[in-house]
């Protein structure tokens, strides 16, 4: 039986998170949703996902701190895609310097996110 690709999504906007959950689950991914950075770190530690999607601006811990924690503390080389809004270009650069793999500027097309996830996870064996 195939193992689905697991994703941790850290997004504090519940409607947007639900939309992405619905979309990505339809695509066959297994999704764990965190409403803030702190929850995201817990989920990443517990589930060791194949890819992490994180918004930059979140309560408690930001996406930058999540990225830093994953790379520095957990020493995981899991792909990390950060979501940024307009005007957060500096933060995106900082995210890249902390080890983010890719970024998507909000608003974005969920279909494009699926393509990026496929690109990042293409080498992961799913069984």
């Amino acid at each position: 039986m195939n193992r689905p690709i697991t994703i941790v999504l850290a997004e504090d906007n519940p409607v947007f998170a639900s939309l992405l959950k619905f979309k990505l689950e339809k695509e066959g991914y297994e999704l764990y949703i965190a409403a803030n950075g702190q929850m995201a770190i817990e989920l990443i530690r517990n589930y060791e996902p194949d890819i992490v999607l994180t918004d930059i601006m979140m309560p408690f811990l930001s996406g930058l701190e999540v990225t830093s924690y994953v790379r520095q503390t957990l020493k995981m080389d899991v792909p990390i895609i950060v979501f940024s809004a307009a005007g957060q270009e500096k933060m995106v650069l900082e995210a890249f310097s902390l080890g983010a793999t890719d970024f998507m500027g909000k608003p974005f097309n969920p279909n494009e996110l699926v393509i990026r996830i496929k690109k990042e996870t293409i080498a992961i064996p799913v069984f």
Partner: protein
Amino acid sequence: MIVKSLYELFAQLSPLLRLMVIITIILAIVVAFLNIYLRILRGQLRQNEQNQLKFKSVYDELIIQYLLGESDPDTSNEEQKIIFNRLNGETTVKFKRVILVSTLIDLHRNITGDLLDKVRKLYDDLGLSHYALKKLKNWHWTTIIHGINELTEMQNREVSGEIDDFISHKRIEIQAAVQLYKANVFGFAGLTFLNDLKGKISEWQQIQLLESIRHSEGQMVPDITEWLHSNNSSVVSFALKLTEIYNLLDVKDSLILLLKHREIGIRIKATSVLAHLGIYECKDILKMCFDRREVIEQVAIVRTVTQFLDLDDLTFFKRLTTHGEFIIRKESIQALEKLERMVVARNRIPKKQAKPDQILQLE
């Protein structure tokens, strides 16, 4: 028995004390009622909040299912119809409609592509634009603004005619909301209201307008000459910002004319925009009018002339080294130092051999 003795005690009191006792009793009763009322109110608010959360999670799911279901082969048309009818039924209740609209706006802000078009279509199909338009007919200005803002968020172009009626509304807040609607929905093309705008556009409103048109990708910046010549100073100020941000070199002549504008703020801004665009022709005009200007404007002129510095400016800056204003003296000395370096470079004299006196003697 106790009541009787209390009454007797009360009867023995002086009139002033009696009045105080009566006031105390009345206040105690009012406080007790307020306490009960607040408890009920708090309970209702909590109930509303819970209902809101409950409905929101249901509607979020239904809307997402509906939006993504169209492209999903597992979801039949019949299921789609059922979801739509359910949502449609909920729009008649204001409380539920507000939740539906907030979900759609939330999605609208975060997504692009075909899904965005679907969100807009669902908003229209559910008749929510009709409810937003109804708000425009409300007597209260905040409700009108809510209606305009909702239609702005949903980028609804069809209602433009109805919203245009409010462009000259007596309330400046409504005017501002209409301006933002036009800029958000139509981009640069929506800025035509500037042609005959009578009211002032605040600095904050200008920033918001600039932010709104920033998203109008692929649109050509219109000819803004008319706005630069406007009698409305705030329109001129906004046009200057556009000139600077979009590097509109075509309006060079209009910018030079603005150096004679009646308002100092516009003249200073025009000077800095000319410097930003590197329009050399303005230099002699600036130097000529220097003495007639206030210190704050003189500083801007000195900085702009410094940017176009050449040996012809030697006399100008030499004269300013004795100016009464420190900042002008400082800028002038710095300009002279730059000139010195230019002369050294031109004459190929090793720098250590060149003396400042040599430069000043060049004149």
